[in-house]
C-alpha cells in the first residue's frame, strides 16, 4: 500500500532462521488470488509454520507467541530467497510489518518489499546477532528505524548502524510515490530511445 515512510519505532518479531524462502513466507496454494487484498495474504503469512497440518495453531511459532509483537520483523540472513512471488511482500505488508531487518536479502524479494512500501534494512551480521540477543533478553525492547537518517538503532544497547538505500528510492518511500509514476512521466525518453536505440 502506498504510504509515506519516515521514522518507525517499534517492538520486534524475531525469526532467527537463515534462508527463509518465499514459499515459506506464502505457500503456492495461496497465490491463486486475482486481486491484491493484502489482508488475505497477511492472514496466510508463514501459513505452514503458523499452523500444524491438522489446522491447529502451532504455539511454538513466533507469530503465535504473544510475547512478541510489533511492526518490525527481524530475520536471519538470505531472507526472501527463491520464487519471485510479490505475494510474499503483500503478506508481510498485510500482516502489518513495515520493516524487515536482516543481514542479507534475496534480490527480487528486496525489490518487491520496496515496491510495497516495506523497508528492507540491511545490517551487519554482528549487529543482527546482537539484536536477536537483545530481543531474547527483553522482548519489549524497541528498535528505531529512521529512513531520513538511514539508521537502525537497537534501543536496548543504544547501538546504531547505517543502512544503504539509493536516493531515488528513499525519496519515493518518503513521499509515497511509486516507480510507475516516474516511468509514465518519462515516456518521452522511452520513445526517443526506441527511435534511436532499437
Amino acid at each position: 500500500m502506498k504510504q509515506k515512510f519516515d521514522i518507525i519505532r517499534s517492538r520486534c518479531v524475531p525469526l532467527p532462521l537463515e534462508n527463509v524462502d518465499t514459499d515459506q513466507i506464502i505457500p503456492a496454494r495461496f497465490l491463486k488470488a486475482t486481486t491484491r487484498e493484502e489482508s488475505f495474504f497477511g492472514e496466510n503469512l508463514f501459513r505452514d509454520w503458523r499452523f500444524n497440518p491438522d489446522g491447529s495453531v502451532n504455539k511454538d511459532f513466533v507469530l503465535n507467541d504473544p510475547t512478541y509483537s510489533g511492526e518490525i520483523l527481524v530475520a536471519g540472513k538470505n531472507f526472501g530467497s527463491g520464487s519471485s512471488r510479490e505475494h510474499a511482500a503483500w503478506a508481510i505488508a498485510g500482516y502489518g510489518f513495515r520493516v524487515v531487518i536482516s543481514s542479507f536479502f534475496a534480490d527480487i524479494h528486496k525489490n518487491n518489499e520496496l515496491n510495497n512500501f516495506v523497508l528492507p534494512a540491511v545490517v551487519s551480521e554482528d549487529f543482527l546477532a546482537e539484536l536477536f540477543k537483545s530481543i531474547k533478553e527483553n522482548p519489549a525492547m524497541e528498535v528505531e528505524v529512521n529512513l531520513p537518517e538511514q539508521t537502525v538503532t537497537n534501543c536496548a544497547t543504544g547501538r546504531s548502524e547505517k543502512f544503504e538505500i539509493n536516493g531515488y528510492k528513499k525519496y519515493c518511500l518518503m513521499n509515497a510515490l511509486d516507480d510507475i509514476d516516474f516511468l509514465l512521466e518519462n515516456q518521452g525518453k522511452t520513445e526517443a530511445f526506441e527511435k534511436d536505440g532499437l
Partner: protein
Amino acid sequence: MNTLFDKIWDAHVVQNVTDGPTQLYIDRLYCHEVTSPQAFEGLRRRGIKCFRPEKIFCMPDHNTPTHDQDKPIEDPVSLEQVDTLEKNAKEFGIEHFGMLHPKNGIIHVVGPERGLSLPGMTIVCGDSHTSTHGAMGAVAFGIGTSEVEMVMASQCILQQKPKSMRINIEGKLAKGVTAKDMALYLMSKLTTSGATGYFVEYAGEAVRDLSMEGRLTLCNLSIEMGARGGFIAPDEKTFEYLKDREYAPKGEEWDKAVEYWKTLKSGDDAVFDKELTFHAEDIEPMVTYGTNPGMGMGITDSIPEVDTIPEEGRESFEKSLEYMGFEPGQKLLDTPVDYVFLGACTNGRIEDFYAFASIVNGRKKHPDVTAWLVPGSWMVYDELKREGLDKFFERAGFEIRQPGCSACLAMNDDKIPAGKLAVSTSNRNFEGRQGPGARTILASPLTAAAAAVTGKITDPRTL
C-alpha cells in the same frame, strides 16, 4: 568492464536516474496467470493501456492440469486465474497461448523453442526462473508483479545494475553427469545466496559443450544460487538452434541478426566483479538432502555432520533434516522413493525425456513408485509422440501427461502427499514446495529415471 552483460545492458539504458536505478528498456515480457492479474488490475486502476502490447506474450502454465485439459479446470480458483489471464490478454491486446493452444506450455520452455527469446535481448517475467532464457545469450531475469506492471505501462523497468560474475567450468563432464548436476554442484559450492547481487556469465569448455537444452537447464537454476540471472554467450550452436524457429528473424533479417549476435561476447580484456573456476571432472551425479537447493551432494556422499556447519546456520540445518527425516552423516543411496517427477522449466525438454528413456531402456517402472512424466510444452509432447516415445514409456509402465508446471510447485492437482519422498527434476526442494509435507530430492533426469526403475536412490552410472 567490457563484459557481454555490460554490452547488452548498456544497449538498453534509456537513462540512469540520478542517485538511483537505471531505466532499462525491455524487449520481451512474458506473463503467466499467477503473477500478472494484479498488474493488469493496476493498469485498469490507473486508466492506462499496455505501452507496447506486441512485445508481450501470455500463457497459463502454473495452474494447468496435466490431464483432461479439454475439460474445464476442476478447481474453481485455478479456473478463475486461468480465465482472468485470457480476459486480460484480450482486453489489453496481447498475444495469448491458452490451454490446448499448440503453442502453450511452460513459458520458459516455449519462449526459446518458438524463437521468441533471442540473443542480445532483455527479457523479463514475473517468475524467478526467467533466467532460463539466458541460454540464448540474452539478459533475462525474474521480477515481481509491481515490476510486471511497470513494464506493461512503459516497456521499461527501474533496476540497479547488478555486479558481474563469470563462472568457468573447464574440462569435460563424465558419462552420466548432466547440466543439472553441474548446476546442483555449483549451488552446493556457492550456497543459495552465493551469487546474490550478481549476473552470471557461464563459460568454459564444459559449458560450451552443453547442448542448448543443457544450457537452458544450467541458466534456469541461476536463481537458486541467488543470482539475478545467468547467461551463455551465443555461438554457432545457438544460431543453429534458433534458425527457422517460428518467431526468429528470417531471410536477410536473419543474416543481419546473426552478424550482430556474433559480436555478443565478453572482450578478452573483460573485467568481472568476481570470477570463479570449477572442473567438470569433479562433478558426479548430484542429489539434494535438505530443504534448499544449495544442500546438495554427490550421490555416493554422506550428509554432512552438524559440527561441519557454521554455528549460525545449525538451527536451519537441523530443522531442514528433521523435515526431510534424514540424519547427519547418512548416505542416501538405496533410500526407498515414493514418487518421481520428470518435468518443469528445469528439465521438461525433449532431451530430458531422451535421457530418462536411456535409463528405462528395457526396464520397467518399479511398482512402488508413482511417476509423473510431464513435457514442458505441446511442442515437446508432439515430438515425443512423433518419435514413438509415448508408446515406449507406456510399455515400461509410465504415462506421459499434458504440459504444465505440474508438481514443481503443485498449484494444480499434482501434489506429492505429505511425508512421501519424491525424486524430482524440478528446481526447488523447499518445505512444502511439492505439496504440504512433501519431501523432495532434486536430481537430474538420469538419476530420476534410475529411482523410477529401482524404487530407490540409485547411481545412474551403475545401470
